[in-house]
Protein backbone atom coordinates (compact mmCIF):
# COMPACT_ATOMS: atom_id res chain seq x y z
CA UNK A 1 0.00 0.00 0.00
CA UNK A 2 1.56 3.31 -0.98
CA UNK A 3 1.65 6.44 1.14
CA UNK A 4 -1.06 8.18 -0.85
CA UNK A 5 -3.52 5.29 -0.45
CA UNK A 6 -2.79 5.03 3.25
CA UNK A 7 -3.38 8.76 3.63
CA UNK A 8 -6.75 8.44 1.89
CA UNK A 9 -7.77 5.64 4.25
CA UNK A 10 -6.56 7.70 7.19
CA UNK A 11 -8.45 10.84 6.17
CA UNK A 12 -11.62 8.77 5.78
CA UNK A 13 -11.28 6.64 8.90
CA UNK A 14 -9.44 8.72 11.49
CA UNK A 15 -12.49 10.58 12.89
CA UNK A 16 -14.31 7.25 13.33
CA UNK A 17 -11.30 5.59 14.92
CA UNK A 18 -10.87 8.52 17.29
CA UNK A 19 -14.57 8.57 18.13
CA UNK A 20 -14.58 4.83 18.91
CA UNK A 21 -11.60 5.31 21.25
CA UNK A 22 -13.09 8.41 22.83
CA UNK A 23 -16.33 6.66 23.68
CA UNK A 24 -14.39 4.36 26.02
CA UNK A 25 -11.53 6.57 27.08
CA UNK A 26 -12.29 10.26 27.27
CA UNK A 27 -8.89 11.85 26.86
CA UNK A 28 -8.34 13.26 23.39
CA UNK A 29 -4.54 13.48 23.68
CA UNK A 30 -4.20 9.79 24.67
CA UNK A 31 -6.65 8.68 21.97
CA UNK A 32 -4.90 10.69 19.27
CA UNK A 33 -1.55 9.21 20.30
CA UNK A 34 -2.96 5.69 20.20
CA UNK A 35 -4.61 6.30 16.82
CA UNK A 36 -1.34 7.69 15.49
CA UNK A 37 0.53 4.60 16.67
CA UNK A 38 -2.06 2.39 14.97
CA UNK A 39 -1.52 4.32 11.75
CA UNK A 40 2.23 3.79 12.00
CA UNK A 41 1.62 0.07 12.54
CA UNK A 42 -0.67 0.03 9.51
CA UNK A 43 2.03 1.64 7.36
CA UNK A 44 4.34 -1.27 8.23
CA UNK A 45 1.88 -4.16 8.19
CA UNK A 46 -0.79 -3.47 5.58
CA UNK A 47 0.18 -5.51 2.55
CA UNK A 48 -2.51 -5.86 1.36
CA UNK A 49 -4.75 -3.76 3.63
CA UNK A 50 -7.33 -5.62 5.74
CA UNK A 51 -10.93 -5.85 4.59
CA UNK A 52 -12.11 -3.70 7.46
CA UNK A 53 -9.40 -1.05 7.94
CA UNK A 54 -11.48 0.86 10.47
CA UNK A 55 -11.94 -2.18 12.69
CA UNK A 56 -8.24 -3.00 12.40
CA UNK A 57 -7.18 0.51 13.38
CA UNK A 58 -9.62 0.61 16.30
CA UNK A 59 -8.45 -2.77 17.62
CA UNK A 60 -4.75 -1.91 17.39
CA UNK A 61 -5.24 1.57 18.86
CA UNK A 62 -7.34 0.15 21.72
CA UNK A 63 -4.55 -2.28 22.58
CA UNK A 64 -2.12 0.63 22.69
CA UNK A 65 -4.45 2.45 25.05
CA UNK A 66 -4.66 -0.63 27.29
CA UNK A 67 -0.88 -1.05 27.27
CA UNK A 68 -0.47 2.56 28.19
CA UNK A 69 -3.02 2.40 30.98
CA UNK A 70 -1.29 -0.68 32.41
CA UNK A 71 2.12 0.89 32.19
CA UNK A 72 0.88 3.97 33.94
CA UNK A 73 0.54 2.65 37.49
CA UNK A 74 -0.62 6.01 38.74
CA UNK A 75 -3.84 5.70 36.78
CA UNK A 76 -7.01 5.03 38.71
CA UNK A 77 -8.38 1.48 38.49
CA UNK A 78 -11.61 2.62 36.98
CA UNK A 79 -9.76 4.04 34.00
CA UNK A 80 -8.02 0.72 33.45
CA UNK A 81 -11.37 -0.99 33.46
CA UNK A 82 -12.68 1.55 31.01
CA UNK A 83 -10.15 0.59 28.35
CA UNK A 84 -9.91 -3.10 29.22
CA UNK A 85 -11.93 -4.29 26.24
CA UNK A 86 -11.91 -3.00 22.66
CA UNK A 87 -14.83 -0.64 22.24
CA UNK A 88 -17.76 -2.07 20.31
CA UNK A 89 -18.54 -0.12 17.20
CA UNK A 90 -22.17 0.71 16.53
CA UNK A 91 -22.71 0.09 12.83
CA UNK A 92 -23.25 3.06 10.55
CA UNK A 93 -22.99 5.54 13.36
CA UNK A 94 -21.93 9.05 12.38
CA UNK A 95 -19.41 10.28 14.91
CA UNK A 96 -18.39 13.44 13.14
CA UNK A 97 -20.78 15.69 15.08
CA UNK A 98 -19.55 14.54 18.51
CA UNK A 99 -15.95 14.91 17.43
CA UNK A 100 -16.58 18.39 16.00
CA UNK A 101 -18.32 19.42 19.21
CA UNK A 102 -15.35 18.23 21.27
CA UNK A 103 -12.83 20.07 19.07
CA UNK A 104 -14.92 23.27 19.23
CA UNK A 105 -15.32 23.07 23.02
CA UNK A 106 -15.99 26.49 24.62
CA UNK A 107 -12.89 26.21 26.85
CA UNK A 108 -10.68 26.59 23.73
CA UNK A 109 -9.72 29.75 21.87
CA UNK A 110 -10.92 30.04 18.27
CA UNK A 111 -7.47 29.39 16.84
CA UNK A 112 -7.14 26.25 18.99
CA UNK A 113 -10.59 25.07 17.92
CA UNK A 114 -9.62 25.51 14.29
CA UNK A 115 -6.30 23.69 14.69
CA UNK A 116 -7.81 20.81 16.64
CA UNK A 117 -10.68 20.37 14.17
CA UNK A 118 -8.27 20.09 11.26
CA UNK A 119 -6.10 17.66 13.18
CA UNK A 120 -8.70 15.37 14.78
CA UNK A 121 -11.68 15.60 12.42
CA UNK A 122 -9.95 16.17 9.09
CA UNK A 123 -6.96 13.98 9.91
CA UNK A 124 -4.49 16.59 8.61
CA UNK A 125 -0.93 16.34 9.88
CA UNK A 126 0.55 18.99 12.14
CA UNK A 127 2.96 19.99 9.36
CA UNK A 128 0.10 20.41 6.87
CA UNK A 129 -1.95 22.54 9.27
CA UNK A 130 1.12 24.64 10.06
CA UNK A 131 1.74 25.14 6.33
CA UNK A 132 -1.89 26.12 5.76
CA UNK A 133 -1.65 28.82 8.43
CA UNK A 134 1.91 29.81 7.50
CA UNK A 135 3.39 29.18 10.94
CA UNK A 136 6.30 26.93 11.96
CA UNK A 137 5.38 23.31 12.65
CA UNK A 138 6.65 23.59 16.25
CA UNK A 139 4.27 26.51 16.87
CA UNK A 140 1.30 24.54 15.55
CA UNK A 141 2.39 21.55 17.65
CA UNK A 142 2.35 23.78 20.74
CA UNK A 143 -1.11 25.10 19.89
CA UNK A 144 -2.41 21.56 19.53
CA UNK A 145 -0.88 20.20 22.72
CA UNK A 146 -2.10 23.19 24.67
CA UNK A 147 -5.58 22.69 23.23
CA UNK A 148 -5.60 19.03 24.31
CA UNK A 149 -4.36 19.98 27.78
CA UNK A 150 -7.09 22.63 28.04
CA UNK A 151 -9.74 20.02 27.15
CA UNK A 152 -8.34 17.73 29.82
CA UNK A 153 -8.36 20.50 32.44
CA UNK A 154 -11.89 21.52 31.50
CA UNK A 155 -13.06 17.92 31.91
CA UNK A 156 -14.47 17.97 28.37
CA UNK A 157 -16.27 14.73 27.52
CA UNK A 158 -16.93 13.10 24.20
CA UNK A 159 -20.63 12.80 23.42
CA UNK A 160 -23.73 14.86 22.82
CA UNK A 161 -24.06 17.83 25.16
CA UNK A 162 -27.32 18.48 27.00
CA UNK A 163 -30.13 19.62 24.67
CA UNK A 164 -30.11 23.14 26.10
CA UNK A 165 -26.37 23.45 25.42
CA UNK A 166 -26.50 22.05 21.91
CA UNK A 167 -27.52 25.19 19.96
CA UNK A 168 -24.59 27.26 21.31
CA UNK A 169 -22.18 24.37 20.75
CA UNK A 170 -23.31 23.88 17.16
CA UNK A 171 -23.06 27.63 16.59
CA UNK A 172 -19.40 27.44 17.69
CA UNK A 173 -18.77 24.57 15.25
CA UNK A 174 -20.29 26.61 12.43
CA UNK A 175 -18.14 29.62 13.33
CA UNK A 176 -15.04 27.43 13.24
CA UNK A 177 -15.94 25.82 9.91
CA UNK A 178 -16.70 29.21 8.37
CA UNK A 179 -13.39 30.52 9.72
CA UNK A 180 -11.56 27.61 8.06
CA UNK A 181 -13.42 28.32 4.83
CA UNK A 182 -12.63 32.04 4.94
CA UNK A 183 -9.00 31.42 5.81
CA UNK A 184 -8.70 29.29 2.69
CA UNK A 185 -10.80 31.54 0.48
CA UNK A 186 -9.26 34.91 1.32
CA UNK A 187 -5.78 33.42 1.06
CA UNK A 188 -6.35 32.03 -2.41
CA UNK A 189 -5.17 35.27 -3.98
CA UNK A 190 -1.83 34.39 -2.48
CA UNK A 191 0.52 31.58 -3.26
CA UNK A 192 -0.02 29.14 -0.39
CA UNK A 193 -0.53 25.61 -1.65
CA UNK A 194 -3.16 24.43 0.77
CA UNK A 195 -5.86 27.09 0.23
CA UNK A 196 -8.02 24.91 -1.96
CA UNK A 197 -7.68 22.19 0.61
CA UNK A 198 -8.98 24.43 3.43
CA UNK A 199 -12.07 25.61 1.53
CA UNK A 200 -12.83 22.07 0.29
CA UNK A 201 -12.39 20.67 3.77
CA UNK A 202 -14.68 23.32 5.33
CA UNK A 203 -17.37 22.52 2.75
CA UNK A 204 -16.93 18.76 3.29
CA UNK A 205 -17.23 19.07 7.08
CA UNK A 206 -20.24 21.41 6.81
CA UNK A 207 -21.92 18.84 4.54
CA UNK A 208 -21.23 16.13 7.12
CA UNK A 209 -22.59 18.34 9.87
CA UNK A 210 -25.69 18.85 7.73
CA UNK A 211 -26.13 15.08 7.46
CA UNK A 212 -25.90 14.76 11.25
CA UNK A 213 -28.32 17.68 11.80
CA UNK A 214 -30.61 17.68 8.73
CA UNK A 215 -33.15 20.06 10.31
CA UNK A 216 -30.60 22.68 11.33
CA UNK A 217 -31.26 25.57 8.96
CA UNK A 218 -28.15 27.54 9.91
CA UNK A 219 -25.92 24.58 9.03
CA UNK A 220 -27.67 24.51 5.67
CA UNK A 221 -27.28 28.30 5.45
CA UNK A 222 -23.55 28.10 6.14
CA UNK A 223 -23.14 25.45 3.43
CA UNK A 224 -25.09 27.62 0.99
CA UNK A 225 -22.94 30.64 1.87
CA UNK A 226 -19.71 28.70 1.32
CA UNK A 227 -20.92 27.33 -2.03
CA UNK A 228 -22.14 30.71 -3.28
CA UNK A 229 -18.84 32.34 -2.24
CA UNK A 230 -16.69 29.56 -3.62
CA UNK A 231 -18.56 29.88 -6.95
CA UNK A 232 -16.88 33.27 -7.53
CA UNK A 233 -13.40 31.88 -7.09
CA UNK A 234 -12.45 31.69 -10.81
CA UNK A 235 -13.29 35.39 -11.27
CA UNK A 236 -11.81 36.89 -8.12
CA UNK A 237 -8.23 37.25 -9.34
CA UNK A 238 -6.94 38.57 -12.65
CA UNK A 239 -4.17 37.14 -14.81
CA UNK A 240 -1.53 38.79 -12.60
CA UNK A 241 -3.06 37.32 -9.45
CA UNK A 242 -4.45 40.66 -8.29
CA UNK A 243 -7.81 40.79 -6.54
CA UNK A 244 -10.80 41.73 -8.67
CA UNK A 245 -13.57 43.38 -6.61
CA UNK A 246 -17.08 41.94 -6.83
CA UNK A 247 -18.37 44.80 -8.98
CA UNK A 248 -15.68 44.23 -11.63
CA UNK A 249 -15.74 40.43 -11.75
CA UNK A 250 -16.53 38.63 -15.01
CA UNK A 251 -19.67 36.85 -13.86
CA UNK A 252 -19.63 34.42 -16.77
CA UNK A 253 -16.72 32.79 -14.96
CA UNK A 254 -18.70 32.13 -11.80
CA UNK A 255 -19.34 28.40 -11.36
CA UNK A 256 -23.01 27.73 -12.06
CA UNK A 257 -23.22 24.30 -10.37
CA UNK A 258 -22.18 25.71 -7.01
CA UNK A 259 -24.57 28.66 -7.40
CA UNK A 260 -27.41 26.28 -8.29
CA UNK A 261 -26.72 24.09 -5.27
CA UNK A 262 -26.47 27.09 -2.91
CA UNK A 263 -29.69 28.63 -4.23
CA UNK A 264 -31.52 25.29 -4.01
CA UNK A 265 -30.51 24.96 -0.34
CA UNK A 266 -31.78 28.47 0.39
CA UNK A 267 -35.09 27.85 -1.37
CA UNK A 268 -35.56 24.86 0.89
CA UNK A 269 -34.63 26.46 4.25
CA UNK A 270 -35.53 30.16 3.98
CA UNK A 271 -39.34 29.69 3.99
CA UNK A 272 -39.05 27.65 7.18
CA UNK A 273 -37.80 30.69 9.24
CA UNK A 274 -36.58 31.93 11.76
CA UNK A 275 -33.66 33.00 9.64
CA UNK A 276 -30.14 33.19 11.10
CA UNK A 277 -27.03 35.07 10.02
CA UNK A 278 -25.59 32.40 7.73
CA UNK A 279 -28.86 32.08 5.82
CA UNK A 280 -29.05 35.88 5.48
CA UNK A 281 -25.45 36.18 4.29
CA UNK A 282 -26.09 33.35 1.84
CA UNK A 283 -29.24 35.09 0.64
CA UNK A 284 -27.20 38.26 -0.01
CA UNK A 285 -24.65 36.21 -1.96
CA UNK A 286 -27.54 34.67 -3.93
CA UNK A 287 -28.90 38.12 -4.88
CA UNK A 288 -25.44 39.01 -6.23
CA UNK A 289 -25.33 35.68 -8.07
CA UNK A 290 -28.69 36.36 -9.73
CA UNK A 291 -27.54 39.67 -11.27
CA UNK A 292 -26.07 39.16 -14.76
CA UNK A 293 -23.76 42.14 -14.14
CA UNK A 294 -22.98 44.53 -11.27
CA UNK A 295 -25.27 47.27 -12.62
CA UNK A 296 -28.25 44.91 -12.52
CA UNK A 297 -27.77 44.19 -8.77
CA UNK A 298 -31.01 44.39 -6.78
CA UNK A 299 -29.61 46.71 -4.11
CA UNK A 300 -33.02 47.33 -2.53
CA UNK A 301 -33.27 43.63 -1.73
CA UNK A 302 -29.68 43.48 -0.49
CA UNK A 303 -30.35 46.47 1.72
CA UNK A 304 -33.46 44.78 3.17
CA UNK A 305 -31.38 41.66 3.89
CA UNK A 306 -28.65 43.70 5.63
CA UNK A 307 -31.34 45.42 7.72
CA UNK A 308 -32.43 41.96 8.87
CA UNK A 309 -28.84 40.80 9.37
CA UNK A 310 -28.13 43.80 11.57
CA UNK A 311 -31.04 42.83 13.81
CA UNK A 312 -30.02 39.15 13.97
CA UNK A 313 -26.24 39.60 14.27
CA UNK A 314 -25.44 43.25 15.02
CA UNK A 315 -21.84 44.41 14.73
CA UNK A 316 -19.76 47.12 13.08
CA UNK A 317 -18.78 44.90 10.12
CA UNK A 318 -22.45 44.28 9.29
CA UNK A 319 -23.25 47.99 9.68
CA UNK A 320 -20.43 48.80 7.25
CA UNK A 321 -21.85 46.43 4.64
CA UNK A 322 -25.29 47.91 5.21
CA UNK A 323 -23.80 51.34 4.51
CA UNK A 324 -22.71 50.10 1.07
CA UNK A 325 -26.17 48.67 0.38
CA UNK A 326 -27.92 51.86 1.53
CA UNK A 327 -25.47 53.94 -0.51
CA UNK A 328 -26.27 51.93 -3.63
CA UNK A 329 -30.03 51.62 -3.01
CA UNK A 330 -30.76 55.16 -1.77
CA UNK A 331 -27.75 57.31 -2.63
CA UNK A 332 -24.15 57.87 -1.47
CA UNK A 333 -25.06 60.57 1.09
CA UNK A 334 -27.28 58.15 3.05
CA UNK A 335 -24.48 55.56 3.07
CA UNK A 336 -21.88 58.14 4.15
CA UNK A 337 -24.01 59.11 7.16
CA UNK A 338 -23.81 55.52 8.39
CA UNK A 339 -20.02 55.33 7.75
CA UNK A 340 -19.44 58.59 9.61
CA UNK A 341 -21.22 57.07 12.60
CA UNK A 342 -18.89 54.06 12.47
CA UNK A 343 -15.81 56.31 12.39
CA UNK A 344 -16.65 57.36 15.95
CA UNK A 345 -15.58 53.86 17.02
CA UNK A 346 -11.75 53.98 17.24
CA UNK A 347 -11.45 50.34 16.16
CA UNK A 348 -13.47 50.94 13.02
CA UNK A 349 -11.59 54.18 12.37
CA UNK A 350 -8.39 52.09 12.20
CA UNK A 351 -9.98 49.46 9.96
CA UNK A 352 -9.11 49.75 6.27
CA UNK A 353 -12.53 48.65 5.05
CA UNK A 354 -14.27 51.58 6.75
CA UNK A 355 -12.15 53.99 4.70
CA UNK A 356 -12.44 51.91 1.52
CA UNK A 357 -16.24 52.03 1.75
CA UNK A 358 -16.16 55.75 2.53
CA UNK A 359 -13.89 56.31 -0.48
CA UNK A 360 -16.24 54.40 -2.76
CA UNK A 361 -19.27 56.38 -1.56
CA UNK A 362 -17.41 59.71 -1.87
CA UNK A 363 -16.47 58.74 -5.43
CA UNK A 364 -20.13 58.04 -6.23
CA UNK A 365 -21.00 61.44 -4.71
CA UNK A 366 -18.49 63.11 -7.05
CA UNK A 367 -15.92 64.09 -4.41
CA UNK A 368 -12.79 62.84 -6.15
CA UNK A 369 -10.24 64.45 -3.83
CA UNK A 370 -12.03 63.20 -0.72
CA UNK A 371 -12.28 59.75 -2.31
CA UNK A 372 -8.55 59.69 -3.14
CA UNK A 373 -7.66 60.64 0.43
CA UNK A 374 -9.93 57.95 1.85
CA UNK A 375 -8.50 55.31 -0.54
CA UNK A 376 -4.98 56.31 0.55
CA UNK A 377 -5.97 56.02 4.20
CA UNK A 378 -7.46 52.57 3.53
CA UNK A 379 -4.31 51.48 1.65
CA UNK A 380 -2.15 52.54 4.60
CA UNK A 381 -4.25 50.52 7.03
CA UNK A 382 -4.64 47.19 5.21
CA UNK A 383 -2.23 44.31 5.84
CA UNK A 384 -3.24 42.58 2.60
CA UNK A 385 -0.80 43.12 -0.27
CA UNK A 386 -3.38 42.62 -3.09
CA UNK A 387 -5.83 44.94 -1.34
CA UNK A 388 -3.14 47.56 -0.88
CA UNK A 389 -2.25 47.46 -4.59
CA UNK A 390 -5.92 47.77 -5.50
CA UNK A 391 -6.58 50.67 -3.09
CA UNK A 392 -3.47 52.57 -4.21
CA UNK A 393 -4.62 52.15 -7.82
CA UNK A 394 -8.09 53.49 -6.99
CA UNK A 395 -6.54 56.46 -5.17
CA UNK A 396 -4.40 57.28 -8.24
CA UNK A 397 -7.43 56.98 -10.55
CA UNK A 398 -9.50 59.29 -8.34
CA UNK A 399 -6.73 61.91 -8.46
CA UNK A 400 -6.46 61.79 -12.24
Amino acid at each position, binding site marked *: MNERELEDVWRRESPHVLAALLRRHGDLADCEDAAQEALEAAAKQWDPPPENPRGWLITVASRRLIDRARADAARADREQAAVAEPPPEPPGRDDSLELLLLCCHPALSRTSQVALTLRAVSGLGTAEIAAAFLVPEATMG*QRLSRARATLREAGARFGRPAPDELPARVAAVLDVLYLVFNEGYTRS*AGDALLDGELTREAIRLTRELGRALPDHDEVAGALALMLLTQAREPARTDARGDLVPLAEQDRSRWRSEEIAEGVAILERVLPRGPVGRFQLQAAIAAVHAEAPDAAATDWAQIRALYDMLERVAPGPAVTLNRAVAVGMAVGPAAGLTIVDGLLQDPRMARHHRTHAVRAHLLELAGDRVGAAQAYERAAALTASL*PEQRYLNRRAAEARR
Partner: protein
Amino acid sequence: MKYVILIHSNPRPWGHPTADYVPEFQALPEEERAAMHADFERRLGELSERGELLGGEALGDAASARLYRWTDGEPLATDGPYSEAKEHLAGFFLIDVESQERAEEIASQFASPGDTVELRATMWPGGDEG
Protein backbone atom coordinates in the same frame (compact mmCIF):
# COMPACT_ATOMS: atom_id res chain seq x y z
CA MET B 1 -2.64 37.52 12.01
CA LYS B 2 1.06 38.07 12.19
CA TYR B 3 2.78 41.03 13.76
CA VAL B 4 6.32 42.03 14.58
CA ILE B 5 7.08 43.62 17.91
CA LEU B 6 10.10 45.87 17.46
CA ILE B 7 12.13 46.87 20.49
CA HIS B 8 13.81 50.26 20.07
CA SER B 9 16.35 51.09 22.72
CA ASN B 10 19.59 52.84 23.52
CA PRO B 11 21.51 50.49 25.84
CA ARG B 12 24.88 51.88 27.05
CA PRO B 13 26.97 49.86 26.55
CA TRP B 14 24.99 47.85 24.02
CA GLY B 15 23.71 44.73 25.77
CA HIS B 16 20.78 42.43 26.36
CA PRO B 17 18.33 42.45 27.95
CA THR B 18 18.42 46.11 26.93
CA ALA B 19 16.65 47.14 30.12
CA ASP B 20 19.78 46.32 32.15
CA TYR B 21 21.72 48.95 30.20
CA VAL B 22 19.30 51.90 30.19
CA PRO B 23 19.29 54.44 33.05
CA GLU B 24 15.48 54.51 33.41
CA PHE B 25 15.45 50.82 34.29
CA GLN B 26 18.65 50.89 36.32
CA ALA B 27 17.08 53.57 38.53
CA LEU B 28 14.42 51.14 39.78
CA PRO B 29 14.87 49.24 43.08
CA GLU B 30 16.47 45.85 42.61
CA GLU B 31 13.40 43.82 43.66
CA GLU B 32 11.32 45.67 41.08
CA ARG B 33 13.87 44.99 38.36
CA ALA B 34 14.04 41.32 39.28
CA ALA B 35 10.25 41.10 39.28
CA MET B 36 10.03 42.73 35.84
CA HIS B 37 12.62 40.37 34.40
CA ALA B 38 10.81 37.37 35.88
CA ASP B 39 7.51 38.67 34.50
CA PHE B 40 9.01 39.03 31.04
CA GLU B 41 10.46 35.51 31.06
CA ARG B 42 7.13 34.10 32.22
CA ARG B 43 5.22 35.98 29.50
CA LEU B 44 7.62 34.79 26.83
CA GLY B 45 7.13 31.22 28.07
CA GLU B 46 3.35 31.64 27.96
CA LEU B 47 3.39 33.04 24.44
CA SER B 48 5.47 30.14 23.27
CA GLU B 49 3.29 27.60 25.05
CA ARG B 50 0.12 29.12 23.57
CA GLY B 51 1.60 28.80 20.10
CA GLU B 52 1.62 32.56 19.57
CA LEU B 53 5.36 33.19 19.48
CA LEU B 54 6.90 32.40 16.11
CA GLY B 55 10.38 33.65 16.87
CA GLY B 56 12.57 36.57 17.70
CA GLU B 57 16.16 37.72 17.95
CA ALA B 58 18.25 40.11 19.98
CA LEU B 59 20.30 42.29 17.63
CA GLY B 60 23.94 43.27 17.78
CA ASP B 61 25.17 46.82 18.45
CA ALA B 62 23.81 49.32 15.92
CA ALA B 63 27.38 50.67 15.69
CA SER B 64 28.46 47.33 14.21
CA ALA B 65 25.89 47.49 11.41
CA ARG B 66 26.98 47.61 7.79
CA LEU B 67 24.85 49.82 5.52
CA TYR B 68 24.54 49.43 1.77
CA ARG B 69 23.28 52.32 -0.34
CA TRP B 70 22.98 52.40 -4.07
CA THR B 71 25.62 54.87 -5.25
CA ASP B 72 26.80 55.46 -8.83
CA GLY B 73 25.10 52.31 -10.08
CA GLU B 74 26.40 49.98 -7.39
CA PRO B 75 25.97 49.25 -3.70
CA LEU B 76 28.31 51.28 -1.50
CA ALA B 77 28.99 49.92 1.97
CA THR B 78 29.47 52.15 5.01
CA ASP B 79 29.55 51.51 8.75
CA GLY B 80 26.51 52.02 10.96
CA PRO B 81 24.58 53.15 12.81
CA TYR B 82 21.75 53.73 10.34
CA SER B 83 20.55 57.00 11.85
CA GLU B 84 21.58 59.58 14.40
CA ALA B 85 18.43 58.80 16.39
CA LYS B 86 18.86 58.14 20.10
CA GLU B 87 17.14 54.76 19.92
CA HIS B 88 18.03 51.90 17.58
CA LEU B 89 16.36 48.67 16.66
CA ALA B 90 17.61 46.32 19.38
CA GLY B 91 15.52 43.22 18.85
CA PHE B 92 12.29 41.84 17.45
CA PHE B 93 9.65 39.20 18.07
CA LEU B 94 7.31 37.67 15.50
CA ILE B 95 3.89 36.67 16.80
CA ASP B 96 0.80 35.07 15.26
CA VAL B 97 -2.40 35.92 17.14
CA GLU B 98 -6.16 35.79 16.82
CA SER B 99 -6.83 39.52 16.68
CA GLN B 100 -5.42 43.03 16.64
CA GLU B 101 -6.63 43.38 20.25
CA ARG B 102 -4.55 40.40 21.34
CA ALA B 103 -1.50 41.77 19.48
CA GLU B 104 -1.90 45.10 21.27
CA GLU B 105 -2.24 43.35 24.62
CA ILE B 106 0.99 41.42 24.04
CA ALA B 107 2.93 44.40 22.69
CA SER B 108 2.02 46.53 25.70
CA GLN B 109 3.49 43.82 27.95
CA PHE B 110 6.82 44.13 26.13
CA ALA B 111 7.12 47.77 27.19
CA SER B 112 9.88 48.50 29.68
CA PRO B 113 11.27 51.74 31.17
CA GLY B 114 13.63 53.43 28.71
CA ASP B 115 12.57 51.32 25.68
CA THR B 116 10.06 52.03 22.91
CA VAL B 117 8.01 49.10 21.69
CA GLU B 118 6.55 49.23 18.18
CA LEU B 119 3.79 46.92 16.96
CA ARG B 120 3.53 46.45 13.20
CA ALA B 121 1.26 44.15 11.23
CA THR B 122 2.98 42.02 8.60
CA MET B 123 1.55 42.13 5.08
CA TRP B 124 -0.07 38.95 3.75
CA PRO B 125 -0.62 37.76 0.20
CA GLY B 126 -4.40 37.19 0.33
CA GLY B 127 -7.37 39.49 0.53
CA ASP B 128 -11.12 39.94 0.40
CA GLU B 129 -12.72 41.09 -2.85
CA GLY B 130 -16.06 41.98 -1.21
